[in-house]
């Protein structure tokens, strides 16, 4: 495997390392190395991506876009850059604990999700960010299978939420 700097990763050399299904969902791995050609392509595509995403969503260019599961509000505007929901410090009226004059990003995400009937997507555990993807094109990363695709249309949101909760209860029994 090639790292961004062209060196091979130690992970391949170790015979003992194995990517379990649990890990595959938890960490966005470097799998599919970022090649030099891909970086150049990423640069070009990032221009078009920025033109759309920066003014519309205040995109922070994390390269691992989860906009579709956060009701099209960029979660990376959170001071802690949380990807899985608000921290415990959201104040009354939904103010951010770090910048009280701002609304908590996840507070906005929750209410927008309700408005757009996308609450069931908030139950998904988003994977640990791969910092090598920072400032790369999410479109390229999606195309290369590093990150999951967007969920654009969603039906029966209420039922989905019920299913998620019921599924979990069943697993225990």
């Amino acid at each position, binding site marked *: 495997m090639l790292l961004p700097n062209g060196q091979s990763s130690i*992970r391949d050399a*170790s015979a*003992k*390392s*194995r*990517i*379990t299904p*649990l*890990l595959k969902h*938890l*960490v966005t791995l470097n799998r599919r190395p970022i090649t030099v050609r891909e970086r150049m392509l990423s640069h070009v595509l990032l221009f078009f991506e920025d033109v759309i995403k920066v003014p519309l969503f205040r995109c922070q260019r994390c390269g691992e876009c989860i906009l579709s599961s956060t009701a099209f509000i960029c979660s990376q505007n959170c*001071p*802690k*850059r*949380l*990807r*899985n*929901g*608000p*921290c*415990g*410090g*959201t*104040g*009354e*009226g*939904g103010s951010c*604990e*770090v910048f009280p004059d701002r609304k908590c990003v*996840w*507070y906005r995400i*929750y*209410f927008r999700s309700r408005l757009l009937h996308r*609450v069931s997507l*908030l*139950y998904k*555990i988003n*994977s*640990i*960010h791969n*910092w090598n993807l920072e400032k790369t094109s999410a479109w390229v990363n999606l195309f290369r299978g590093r990150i999951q695709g967007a969920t654009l249309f969603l039906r029966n949101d209420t039922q989905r939420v019920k299913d*998620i*909760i019921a599924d*979990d*209860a069943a697993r*225990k029994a």
Partner: protein
Amino acid sequence: MTLQEKLESNQFVVCGEIAPPQSCDGNLIRDRSRHFKGHVDALNITDNQRAIVRLSSISSAKILLDEGIEPIIQMTCRDRNRLAIQSDLLGAAALGIRNVLCLTGDHQTFGDQPEAKGVFDLDSIQLIAAVATMNSGFLLSGFEMKKPPEFLIGAAANPFAEPFEMRLIRLHKKIAAGARFIQTQAVFDLGVFARWMERVVEMGLHEKAAILPGVMPVRSAKRLLWMREKLPGMRIPAEYFNRMSQARNPEEEGITMAVEMIRALKNMRGVRGIHIMPSLWESVTPTIVKEAGLHVAH
């Protein structure tokens, strides 16, 4: 009996909490922990809480182990990236620490060194999943360990922060990721907590993780005011203030209110224990445990 065994056998557990000193004085931890010995099942040790540098949580936990108290270390994502988190956890496991509470951590701007870089490589839910992965024998790199740790994973919940529904979603995610006990933010507003607990039971989450609501005995009205203003995510009703400021003996009133709170929480459906957080008032613990009729098995 360890905390895990107690939770598995459905016992009502009592946890305490201490903050390590802002110096290398290990005796201070011993002194503070003495108030808890024999009165709690396990003792939380905060990890640079409110982003103020303190003696490390894991080192303090080792001191508690030597004192014969079961520690629960807190692990925050503010100060460590994934490498440091895994390495610290392996170290903790090697020292015989079995319980870990996974937190995101207060933002660094709340502390005494707001210029610091906050790491937040993982968030609390990803941290829980990472510890669960380690328990299953793998590091986040996919490396299979010869001897995996056996952590009892805990998480925090704040039923009082907004939006209410999002808190339940987050709790659901934390439990799905592998949390086995949940310590909540200090309860002052019983009404909101009861509403939250009702929903938790409705979702069936109380069966998968032990819910331990937090109780914070308060010494004076001044301290209460400080808490409301300085601690993020605290909700203290006006009624509580009035009682405290009108009391002739605020300390006694503080104990009475904490005991009343514990009694009310104990009878709530789904509550499996109490988490007592006597911040800077450790000596009150035995009194509260005794007056509230909490029994600690050994």
